[in-house]
């Protein structure tokens, strides 16, 4: 029809499946490169912190996972909104494919936070506003995954999950601020990360690691969405051709 590059073409699973397959190796390679560079800077180049010693180096995993956990929820809510507004099949699959990665990031963020907290603050867990809201975010991820898993009809599951995601994304600021006020009312903040100007090299390490986690998340979500597409569309011709091509 026309030569104009049409992005909407890729909203159909049959065209998105091969595209995702082509993109995955690139994102994996970029993730490995960024990860190696980030780890090199983080573990070998960045100087020892004069207050926190070597233990601070967990920041290079902790901060990127926290960012990703929050960002992935927003991306899922974005796909949910698209899916509910335009009734596209792919959006719900994308939200589903992202959910386990988001939950993993939230869990890793909490876990590395606990490992960091023990040597620095002397405790695994404090009811700090940021820790508590990250924990609630993990609950929201688990709630979403439980809901879509409980609904047998995939399209109904996508839509119901989409509504839950949108309700969740409206609630996240409310939850965050209520937890923050609750915390300041109950106790003076016993934990205060002094906002010392971070050495530039540490910032670079963190950014590289964030990019590495970003690439990992995209690659794994694409791989997951490919399997979801095959499973959902198994009765269609393109899946039969795809699978027949693999076995040759």
């Amino acid at each position: 029809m026309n030569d104009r590059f049409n992005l909407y073409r890729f909203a159909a699973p049959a065209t998105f499946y091969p595209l995702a397959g082509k993109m995955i190796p690139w994102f994996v390679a970029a993730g490995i490169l960024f990860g190696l560079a980030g780890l090199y800077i983080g573990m070998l180049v960045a100087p020892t912190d004069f207050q926190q010693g070597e233990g601070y180096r967990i920041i290079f995993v902790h901060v990127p996972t926290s960012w990703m956990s929050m960002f992935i929820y927003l991306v899922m809510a974005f796909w949910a909104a698209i899916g509910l507004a335009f009734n596209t099949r792919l959006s719900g699959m994308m939200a589903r494919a992202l959910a386990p990665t988001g939950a993993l990031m939230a869990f890793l963020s909490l876990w590395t936070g606990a490992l960091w907290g023990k040597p620095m603050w002397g405790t695994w867990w404090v009811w700090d506003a940021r820790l508590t809201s990250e924990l609630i975010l993990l609950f929201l991820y688990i709630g979403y995954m439980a809901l879509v898993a409980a609904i047998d009809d995939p399209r109904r599951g996508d839509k119901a999950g989409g509504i839950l995601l949108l309700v969740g994304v409206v609630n996240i600021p409310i939850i965050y601020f209520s937890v923050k006020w609750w915390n300041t009312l109950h106790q003076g903040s016993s934990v205060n990360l002094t906002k010392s100007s971070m050495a530039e090299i540490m910032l670079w390490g963190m950014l590289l690691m964030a990019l590495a986690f970003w690439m990992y998340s995209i690659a794994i979500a694409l791989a997951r969405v490919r399997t979801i597409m095959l499973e959902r569309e198994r009765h269609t011709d393109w899946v039969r051709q795809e699978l027949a091509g693999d076995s040759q």
Partner: protein
Amino acid sequence: MPNIVFSVIARDLKLAMRRQADIVSALFFFVIVVSLFPLGIGPEVDLLRQLAPGILWVAALLATMLSLPRLFADDYRDGTLEQLALAPHPLGLVVTGKVIAHWLVSGLPLALITPVLGIQFDLSTDALLVLTGAILIGTPALSGIGAIGAALTLGLRGGGILLSLLVLPLYIPVLIFGAGAVDATVSGLGGEGHLSLLAAMTIAAIGFAPWASAAALKIALE
């Protein structure tokens, strides 16, 4: 337009009155959970006085949540819900009526019995008033937010447990400000700010949640 809201409230109240055992059992669930805490914690009056707002609020959250599956399930099973969705009135208004009726039979009784339970925890008169007021103002928000969860889990196996996973994290702000109002009053800061925020949440939940649950109901009815 508001007629549909009132007629749904009247209908749901009439149905609830014919099954009073349901109302009473949710209420006694609340009373029993609250009474279990002193047995677990110990009878020290100072400690209990401090814990009372949190305990009563958590119990109120659980009691409200337990009665949520019934919000739509009976109408779904006998086909009434489908007829209501086909009616010319916006489904959001129907759900608004159901949410208000749900609060009248589940939230309001909790608020009415709260002073009695608060006395067991040796709360002062001020704290008792604020706690009762907070439960009175805050429980409509619980019914509203819960309606979304009830609509999303309609007709699913294991719906009850799933409902708690979906709804309890969203209840956290109400819990924080509800229990916080009493703490602020006891510590002399004044609980008005908390109560205002609680009222804001209730208004937002009653205003917006029914429309989200209506969207969820339409998905369930497809």
